[in-house]
């Protein structure tokens, strides 16, 4: 009996050590991403200076262009490290929306670098896909995890190939990651999402990969499953919930919610525009045939003009009106949400 307790204790100790090692790698990745940014920016600035030289031979200009391409690739890798280093279970301050086509351009270098050079990688993320309600970093961590498993499975495959496809299906977006590797037997398929289950030597695998992937996906209302009908190789299917900011118009493509921003302070305008883009919303622009905004964000000075522009009586307004400042006697209808400038970040909660 004592031996069994010793075994369990030793196993738990090893799991703890592996988890600590993973946490350390996350910290290392974050530090590396930071240092790379600090090193790459001066290189880019110096390349700008060199490119401006009048007496530079054509061959040197071509060399400079080649260096710039390599450095840009390095910079994208640094951006990908940022995604991988974020704590997947602590994403409250992170963007909660991912536009897959844009996301893929950032994650692609990481995926390609995670595979052997001879692997053929294809991916299809249509720009018309609706945004999904998941932080980009979390999705990157899940997909890179699947890709690293695929690399292992394709060792020994003559023409390794990885295909990532995506499709919108009734309220969700489905992303499939398919490799042409050794595949999985029935037992592995059945147990692969169990914590600590692994087919690799413990020294090289934590066994936490797929179970963590599933926990992450489910945390954001999605899931991951393994398909049984891909031979040879394996297909993992991710289901991602569509972000609530996207609403379906049967006649047109996905339309984001529109927000009329009427703020005088340029700093507040810049911050609101960032908040809108992080929530899949767009700034409303006047024009013939323009759809009405769902929100109006104004201040004490602009509220009257802005509301009259939309011919809105605040008491009957269908749009949500948010004003930054202190309510004035002239412009303080009851259904306007007022936000003190010193508590501007509260706007993020009101915009949800």
């Amino acid at each position, binding site marked *: 009996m004592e031996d069994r307790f010793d075994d369990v204790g030793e196993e738990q100790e090893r799991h703890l050590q592996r988890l600590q090692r993973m946490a350390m790698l996350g910290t290392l990745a974050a530090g590396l991403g930071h240092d790379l940014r*600090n090193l790459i920016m001066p290189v880019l*600035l*110096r390349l700008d200076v060199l490119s401006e030289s009048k007496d530079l031979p054509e061959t040197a200009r071509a060399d400079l262009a080649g260096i710039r391409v390599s450095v840009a690739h390095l*910079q994208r890798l640094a951006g990908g490290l*940022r995604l991988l280093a974020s704590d997947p279970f602590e994403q409250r301050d992170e963007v909660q929306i991912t536009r897959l086509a844009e996301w893929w351009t950032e994650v692609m270098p990481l995926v390609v670098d995670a595979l052997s050079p001879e692997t053929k990688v294809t991916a299809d993320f249509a720009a018309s896909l609706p945004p999904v309600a998941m932080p980009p970093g979390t999705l990157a961590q899940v997909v890179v995890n699947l890709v690293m498993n695929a690399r292992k499975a394709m060792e020994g495959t003559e023409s390794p190939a990885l295909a990532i496809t995506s499709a919108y299906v009734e309220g969700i977006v489905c992303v499939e990651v398919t490799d042409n590797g050794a595949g999985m037997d029935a037992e592995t398929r059945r147990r692969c999402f169990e914590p600590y289950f692994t087919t690799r030597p413990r020294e090289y695998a934590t066994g936490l990969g797929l179970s963590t992937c599933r926990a992450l996906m489910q945390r954001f209302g999605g899931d991951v499953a393994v398909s049984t009908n891909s031979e040879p190789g394996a297909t993992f299917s991710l289901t991602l919930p569509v972000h609530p900011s996207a609403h379906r118009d049967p006649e047109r493509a996905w339309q984001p919610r529109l927000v009329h921003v009427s703020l005088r302070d*340029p700093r507040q305008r810049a911050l609101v525009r960032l908040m809108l883009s992080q929530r899949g919303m767009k700034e409303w622009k006047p024009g013939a045939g323009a759809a009405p905004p769902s929100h109006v964000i104004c201040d004490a000075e602009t509220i009257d003009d802005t509301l009259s522009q939309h011919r809105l009586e605040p008491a009957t307004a269908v749009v949500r009106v948010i004003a930054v400042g202190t309510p004035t006697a002239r412009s303080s209808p009851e259904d306007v949400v007022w936000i003190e400038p010193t508590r*501007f970040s509260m706007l*993020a909660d009101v915009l949800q």
Partner: protein
Amino acid sequence: MVAPSLFTVMCIDDNVMLVDALERRLALEPGFGRFYRVDAFVNAADAVAEAQPDVVLLDIDLPGGVDAVELLAELVQRTPQSRVIVFTGHPQGELVSRTMGLGAWGFVSKGIPSDRLIDAIRHVAGGEAVIELED
């Protein structure tokens, strides 16, 4: 928007390679006036008050126990005519709203292409607020 005829920039950053390269790059910009650097970060607020640059690029990770967010708040209070751009290799969402809420005119990640950094400096010098994060 009309940019000032000659705009001046101060860079508060301990990365000497970056500061040197930025000085060289800005020297090529039409309308650029003068570049200032800070060596003693504990006296950075005094240096800004003395030079009164149009734009201050403020790294968020300063050595010597200097809290850059506190320094930002002091600069906004003391020298509001010098517009601060927070310049960081740790571009986090929370930091953007915190520093812009304190009165920064810009938030720029060090992970963007160099032309977007130069555009950001120009726009802030011209009175526009800018947030430039990695794509």
